[in-house]
């Protein structure tokens, strides 16, 4: 019993992190039709920037905010200056793979190759007791952050003018443009938001998953799995799939460590075979 509660909490907290990571990727795929393989780099660079801020100020909030904003700007610039000009998906793939290499190597130059971990906020340093067992309070914080961000995104998409404009632009870009929405600017902003969320995930995750060279590729693959299972462009899909992958990965590792990776790849392959557009994707 204890085992199941503890492992479910582990999986949920991991899944929430995956949601932060994958939400932006899903949006750029589905809304902007941009394939971005540098998304994992946003996570990594965000984590490193957060680390530096944390070392300088000791303030975790500042690390989160600066990490997210700086990477958000990086995303904005990449979309505005380069990606926007490429309509061909293949060109986007190769361009963003180039950035995967560039950002990864620059991070290695700036932050070195030693694995790093962001100090947790002191309040969430220790364990707390849940019934019989002991659980790190920080992971509960991660679950909280994930829920807050999910609600915020849902509100942004369904309850604000910006969200309405985005939905209109996706349905019919020309029509939206003719009603006075600056579609290009809107897309740039959404892309930047996606990058910022990945960076937020990087800072939050950097405090319990560590940060290391090559992590960009690892998290990119996880994000792709989430996006493919959830369906390109669907926030709901990204949320459900992230929790699903988080739980599958955690229980998979706990119960069948030999099959790690398979416990998430196999569902992905099955979903691709049955429903190539994912659980919540549009045909």
């Amino acid at each position, binding site marked *: 019993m204890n*085992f199941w509660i*503890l*492992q479910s909490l*582990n999986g949920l*907290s*991991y899944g929430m992190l995956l949601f932060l990571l994958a939400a932006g990727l899903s949006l750029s795929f589905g809304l902007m039709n941009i394939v971005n393989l540098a998304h994992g780099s946003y996570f990594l660079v965000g984590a490193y920037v957060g680390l530096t801020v944390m070392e300088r100020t000791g303030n975790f909030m500042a690390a989160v905010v600066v990490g997210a904003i700086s990477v958000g700007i990086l995303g904005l610039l990449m979309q505005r200056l380069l990606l926007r000009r490429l309509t061909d998906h293949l060109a986007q793939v190769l361009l963003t793979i180039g950035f995967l290499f560039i950002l990864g*190597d620059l991070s*290695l130059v700036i932050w*070195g*190759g*030693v*694995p*790093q*971990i962001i*100090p947790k906020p002191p309040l969430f340093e*220790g*364990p707390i007791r849940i019934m019989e*067992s*002991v*659980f*790190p309070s*920080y*992971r509960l914080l991660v679950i909280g952050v994930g829920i807050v961000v999910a609600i915020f995104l849902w509100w942004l998409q369904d309850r604000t003018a910006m969200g309405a404009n985005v939905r209109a632009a996706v349905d019919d870009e020309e029509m939206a443009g003719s009603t006075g929405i600056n579609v290009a600017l809107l897309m740039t902003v959404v892309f930047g938001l996606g990058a910022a969320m990945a960076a937020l995930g990087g800072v939050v995750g950097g405090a*319990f*998953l*560590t*940060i*290391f*060279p*090559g*992590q960009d590729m*690892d998290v990119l693959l996880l994000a792709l799995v989430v996006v493919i299972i959830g369906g390109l462009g669907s926030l709901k899909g990204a949320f459900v799939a992230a929790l699903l992958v988080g739980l599958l990965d*955690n*229980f998979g*590792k*706990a119960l069948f*460590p*030999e099959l*790690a*990776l398979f416990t998430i790849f196999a569902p992905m392959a099955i979903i691709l075979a049955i429903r190539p557009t994912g659980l919540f994707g549009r045909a």
Partner: protein
Amino acid sequence: MDKRIGVIGSIVLMIALLVSCGPGATPAPTPTKAPVAAPTAAPKAAEATPTAAPAAKPTTAPASQPTPAAKAPTTPIKIGILTTLTGVFAAPGADLRDGFLLYLAEKGNKLAGREVQVIVEDDEVKPDVGLTKAKKLVERDGVNLVLGVISSGVALSAGPYLAQNKKVFLITNAGADDLTQKAANPYIFRNSFANSTGGMVAADWGYKQKGWRTAVILGSDYAAGWEWTGGFARVFTDLGGKIIQELYPPLGNPDPAPFVSQLQKADVTYVFQAGADALSFVPAYAQYGVKARPQPLIGNYGITDLSILPKQGEAALGVLQGGPFAEGLDTPANKALTKAFKDKYNRDATIFTEPAYTAGRMIEKALEAVKGNIEDTDAFVKALETVEIPDAPRGAVKFDKLHNIVSPFYVSEVQRVGGQVNNMAIATYPNTTQFFKWTPEEWLKMTPLSEMKGKWVK
């Protein structure tokens, strides 16, 4: 349009330039027909008398005596460093490289009177890239010797090639037992450690000194993880202890949660984790309340190595390790190395630095014995076999018959010393071999530890 042509032109030009400055003046030795039958079987036979003086193994040995009289060439000695500079092991790889470069710099870039030219190659922790780079070092750069290698996978792919081409390969980290056991080769040396030894030392010390009788083992799911934890389990069970749980998280698993949260109660947890995995494991061990049970944590000397220890916080205090080195070792040579490295590179020396640094001394000593004539490979191999360094940073070191290091091993503990955390030795096992308390024959007859995974819990 013309902008595009300009770019294309410059790319082509760049490549043309790179290619044209390629071949160099020294025609690399062309192994027209690589000797497939390298004398791999020889060392095992010679192993019968472990205490005897090094026997002549390489088949060509007899000719080696008179050659040093022939004048050594005056051209520079070329040494290739095969290490990892990108990806997850980039930092250890750089520490390894700089350890050797530091020694060279201290010697004015000359060993045994000959200039040394170093060529560094990045293996990306990928065995096939490592092999390609080894080929490049031998066939294009014409190196006389290759040293380094962080990853055993790379060592196992590059080793046979280097041996076939009769290039001395001095491994300064990769710990796979096989390299100096099943895959031992006259041209392959290792001055770091064999994986299992550190675990064996930890088990012996814990059982005898701490009275541990039950243990949980947890190792990264690859050869090194199986061998370190296997070494612990073999000695621990041999002494009468009991392994009650085995866990093997995948390598490169930065989230230890699924594993830490199911650790069973025992007298001790023995762990093999490295790099980022170790960095997150040690705090998680405390946050999931295992440390406070109390259930001591002992592991490989990488779980709290000095590059990650300060970031692990309070959780790391009291963590124990067994290994061939501890950064806080109180030997004059280690203090000198620690200071010199910090002065030159402005960062701390790590466990990856010492073997590479000591490799410089070992190569120098062997070179002096052959009067700098490294081109006579077999004589050089013979000289390297007999090298002994009584005062290396980690203590007295020499090679055993299978070319693995014989050195002191330590049990160390994370302590706060003068406001700084460090790994401080609390017990010493001098002159420890890769066979620990067994003879080489007994050891080689046992099942290799990499095949023992999952068989310790009875």
